[in-house]
């Protein structure tokens, strides 16, 4: 009951903050992009918080528990460096454009309302599905914690994020996301450090795990590749999977709407870039503990089923109550922060990117704001109904929906900055081709049991389809002059951003992050490599 009390108390805190912040929302710019005034700490907080969800704390910790902790550590550096690469290739230009949504950026770049509506449509379908998955995951968790039926838990969870998102829009999401970011960072790092300590420290944990019978090779880089529960048939297949998914997730954090849209709220583009460095480091630091801690849970109980509940089992059965409450609240916070960002995004896209294509009416600020809130409420109710009636498939839908954007948006996002040749028709064809290819193939893999070779991963084929779509669609069409003019305007560095003090400070963020990368190596060396080499030497 104490766990449920902690979670409900956190819900009330988010609600109060949302209400206070929401009172200051006066314009569409406030509601959509927090008045473009967010400092580095808030942009970094919301970047990580909207990325990390129950998929990380339940699905990926469960995967580490199953025997793939180190394999996930191969995937993560590629994934996390997407923040720094993404903000330089796409995010800073997005911030410079001063649009309200990412689909609007595409629309202006190609002078095409149709493209804006198509991009908005992909947000609605892809992120809507992701929102259903995250809402479902949190509701199952709450229903299990409190012992109430799923329907009531769903209503409580839905109200928790819908109420403050609807009222306060981006400013509320920014502040609550940052609070949730701190809660789940503390939960992940402190919870896992305590678990490793309670199990006897890194040396004991490693020697116990090396001898674990049911999961042979659990600490090897490729993970478990033998036995009935092996997810991969060979070390090469496992590593290839990690590298492929690492690149796919790097693209997702670089261009996906729920990540790149965070840069629109930044005070200036230097804040966007600095936030990219902070987010990259925080994700890498957190994952060391989540993954190695996830594997450590085997020392206490190697038979938790389903493995997605491993961290929650540990919070209830191994950790002291105060830390268990922080961990459970942190896991819920991770889900809630993503859900809030997703709801805001689908609401913004429907009201700002899709609706104007059908209803071309001019609205004043107050009416436009009321319209945005009404659309968000209606979509929220649709999500509530779909979540209630859909079968449990939390992590499948989560991964599935996220990867849609890598192939659909990735090629268009980068080429629209770096190429003049791509046209509006090419961008629409590329976006739709990438989206449909991943949607159909991944659907066949996940729900119809179709097996594709690693090289024919749906996302890889989706990338290929998107590039082909861009090339073929751009044939025979002239670029719009307004679109080219927009591109030239975003390629010009604003004078205030060349101010030496500002540039020096951003440079320092890069150098400090480079130095902190050494800290990651030292941490992993101490808690993973050193005990492993000692255990293997002693056993030889």
């Amino acid at each position, binding site marked *: 009951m104490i766990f449920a009390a902690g979670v409900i108390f956190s819900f009330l805190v988010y609600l109060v903050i949302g209400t206070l912040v929401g009172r200051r929302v006066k314009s569409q710019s406030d509601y959509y992009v927090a008045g473009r005034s967010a400092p580095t700490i808030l942009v970094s907080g919301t970047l990580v918080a909207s990325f990390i969800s129950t998929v990380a704390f339940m699905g990926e910790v469960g995967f580490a528990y199953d025997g793939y902790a*180190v394999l996930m*550590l*191969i995937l*993560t*550096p*590629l994934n*996390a*460096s997407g923040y*720094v*690469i993404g903000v*330089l290739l796409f995010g800073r230009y997005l911030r410079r454009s001063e649009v309200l949504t990412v689909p609007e950026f595409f629309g202006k770049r190609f002078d095409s309302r149709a493209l804006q509506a198509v991009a908005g449509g992909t947000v609605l379908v892809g992120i809507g599905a992701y929102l259903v998955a995250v809402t479902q995951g949190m509701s199952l968790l709450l229903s299990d914690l409190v012992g109430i039926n799923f329907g009531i838990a769903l209503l409580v969870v839905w109200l928790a994020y819908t109420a403050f998102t609807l009222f306060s829009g981006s400013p509320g999401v920014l502040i609550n996301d940052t609070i949730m970011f701190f809660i789940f960072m503390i939960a992940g790092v402190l919870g896992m450090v305590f678990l490793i300590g309670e199990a006897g420290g890194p040396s004991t944990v490693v020697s116990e795990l090396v001898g674990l019978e049911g999961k042979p090779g659990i*600490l*090897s*880089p490729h993970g478990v590749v033998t036995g009935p529960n092996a997810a991969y048939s060979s070390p090469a297949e496992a590593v290839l999977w990690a590298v492929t998914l690492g690149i796919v997730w790097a693209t997702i954090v670089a261009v996906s709407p729920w990540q790149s849209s965070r840069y629109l709220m930044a005070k200036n583009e230097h804040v966007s*870039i600095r936030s*990219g*460095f902070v987010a*990259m*480091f925080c994700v*890498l630091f957190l994952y*060391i503990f989540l993954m190695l801690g996830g594997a450590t849970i085997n020392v206490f109980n190697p038979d938790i089923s389903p493995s997605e509940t491993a961290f929650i089992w540990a919070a209830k059965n191994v950790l002291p109550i105060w830390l268990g409450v922080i961990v459970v609240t942190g896991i819920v916070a991770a889900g809630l922060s993503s859900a809030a960002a997703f709801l805001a995004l689908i609401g913004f896209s429907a009201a700002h990117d899709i609706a104007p294509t059908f209803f071309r009416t001019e609205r004043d600020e107050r009416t436009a704001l009321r319209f945005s809130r009404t659309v968000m409420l209606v979509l929220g109710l649709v999500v509530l109904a779909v979540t209630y009636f859909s079968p449990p498939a939390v992590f499948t839908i989560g991964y599935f929906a996220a990867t849609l954007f890598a192939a659909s948006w990735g090629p268009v996002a980068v080429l629209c900055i*770096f190429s003049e040749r791509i046209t509006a028709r090419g961008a629409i064809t590329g976006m739709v081709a990438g989206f449909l290819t991943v949607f159909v193939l991944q659907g066949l893999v996940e729900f119809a049991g179709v097996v594709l070779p690693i090289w024919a991963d749906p996302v890889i084929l989706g990338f290929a389809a998107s590039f082909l779509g861009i090339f073929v669609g751009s044939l025979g069409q002239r670029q719009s002059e307004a679109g080219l003019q927009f591109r030239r305007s975003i*390629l*010009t*560095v604003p004078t205030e*951003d*060349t101010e*030496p003090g*500002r*540039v020096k400070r*951003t*440079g320092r963020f*890069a*150098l400090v*992050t*480079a130095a902190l*990368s*050494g*800290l*990651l*190596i030292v941490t*992993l*060396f101490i808690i*993973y*490599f050193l005990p*492993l*080499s000692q255990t*293997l030497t002693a056993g030889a």
Partner: protein
Amino acid sequence: MTTSALIVVLYYGLVPLAASVVAYAVIRRTYTKGDRR
């Protein structure tokens, strides 16, 4: 296994290190001399 484990440990820090150093060069070039595209 120890060699491959050591490679993973080094790789975990070297990838973000490389990204940060490249980004530093891009920032210096772009914001002190202007975007030259």
